[in-house]
């Protein structure tokens, strides 16, 4: 159990690191070539994972929600309800979990290796700032790619729902889609997109921070990967809670 002081210190350092790197992005910009190169690497590496995840998450939630609706004979609402729930609640979390294992782990291992083999120090010795030339492009590409992948995955959850409903739950695609506009409001989509962005940012900043700070031998790279995975998962849950909480409160406020 790490003590509280250490934990707060780490969070503070992570925040300062992210602020500095994101500041570099806004001040110095990023070469389009480097950005596309990095995004391509991340995107291609995780495309299949994301698509599979999206389809199955949609299918799982459709089955679960169908169980509840069946007893009330309200199956015609299945498409609307399950899509809405998926997009604003569990969809982003589950897909972000998978991405953090895929994208986050890879990036912290890559940067950790660069740190312990003096590659980052060598860049310093060439008169360059590794935060600007190595970390910043990766962090930006990771954040954007994770965000886009999450949105893609969320889109595919609808397909997952449609497929499982028509072959297993006796709800035909047209029926499934017909109630989506009624249930999936602009705010659902906004929340889904907002969460996707925040989760992308979490995956990008944490994996870069932990990788960059790696010191010691090869076994430390392994430790960094594990740390990235754990910290990212916990942070995703916490952010999910905070966003849901804030949105609920605001909705209550507007309603009353």
């Amino acid at each position, binding site marked *: 159990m790490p003590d509280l002081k250490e934990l707060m210190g780490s969070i503070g350092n992570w925040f300062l690191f992210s602020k500095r790197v994101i500041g570099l992005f806004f001040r110095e910009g990023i070469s389009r070539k480097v950005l596309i190169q990095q995004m391509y690497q991340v995107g291609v590496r995780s495309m299949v994972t994301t698509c599979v995840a999206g389809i199955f998450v949609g299918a799982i939630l459709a089955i679960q929600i169908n169980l509840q609706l069946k007893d009330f004979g309200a199956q015609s609402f299945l498409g609307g309800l399950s899509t809405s729930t998926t997009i604003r609640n569990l969809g982003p979390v589950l897909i972000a979990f998978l991405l953090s294992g895929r994208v986050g782990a890879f990036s912290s291992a890559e940067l950790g290796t660069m740190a312990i083999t003096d*590659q980052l*120090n*060598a*860049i*310093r010795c060439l008169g*360059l700032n590794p935060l600007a030339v190595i970390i910043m492009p990766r962090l930006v590409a990771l954040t954007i790619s994770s965000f886009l992948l999450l949105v893609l995955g969320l889109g595919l959850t609808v397909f997952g729902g449609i497929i499982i409903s028509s072959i297993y739950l006796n709800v035909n695609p047209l029926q499934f889609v017909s109630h989506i506009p009624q249930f999936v409001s602009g705010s659902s989509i906004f929340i889904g997109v907002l969460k996707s962005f925040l989760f992308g940012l979490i995956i990008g900043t944490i994996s870069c921070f932990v990788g960059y700070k790696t010191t010691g031998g090869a076994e430390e790279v392994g430790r960094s990967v594990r740390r990235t995975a754990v910290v990212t998962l916990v942070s995703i849950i916490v952010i999910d809670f905070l966003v849901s909480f804030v949105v609920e409160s605001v909705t209550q406020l507007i309603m009353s």
Partner: protein
Amino acid sequence: MLELKSITKKFANKVVLNSVNLRLQRSQILFVLGRSGVGKSVLLKTIVGLIPQDRGEVWINGEKTDPLNEEKMVTVRQKCGLVFQMPALLDSLTLQENLEFGLEGNQKSGLRKYLDWVQLSEGVLSRYPSEVSFGTQKKVSVVRTLLREPQFILFDEPTTGLDPVSREVTNQMIRNVVKESETGCVVVSHDIQSAIELANSIMLLDEGRVVFEGTPEAFRNSDQGLIRSFCKGMVVLDA
């Protein structure tokens, strides 16, 4: 001149460097010897501010460095290059791209000459670090530093892990850079024979302290226990 004044560095509670002094003029070669883990790499990284010292000062050409000021360290690192113990090339770039990374146009002129010095052919430069041998990677990392033509170069175990031929090539490269550019060289090494051949002075570190400093002759003739056991290693190597 490169000068260290009572440099002290602790990690956790372990004192790695304990009040280490060092002076090096241009065109001079100083060999730093010592057992593995004694703090030789830490010493070199302290000089260029990659690891800030706890106490003590580093002076380069009469100017005190400030390791906490990254911007000012950039000029220090232009004057004083470090060739790392590991090749430390960027895996995602070709050897050529590694050499040109952050290089100014006018600095490319020496490329052919420096490749010659380490006996590398230009053809190999289109490959990635993972596709060439460890020795080739080390040579490329040497050239990367030579191209920037610093006034001082710190070599961290340049011949460890190399075959005897490459070792001789590396030693000749050090002679060349001293003769042609009046570069001052600090060479961390386990290779006593090279030290005795090349060095103007030899320094031995043990338990964080400088336990010997003097000419190669004095080193060879010393009756200090640790030096004797170092030299015995050399005799065994010779046999």
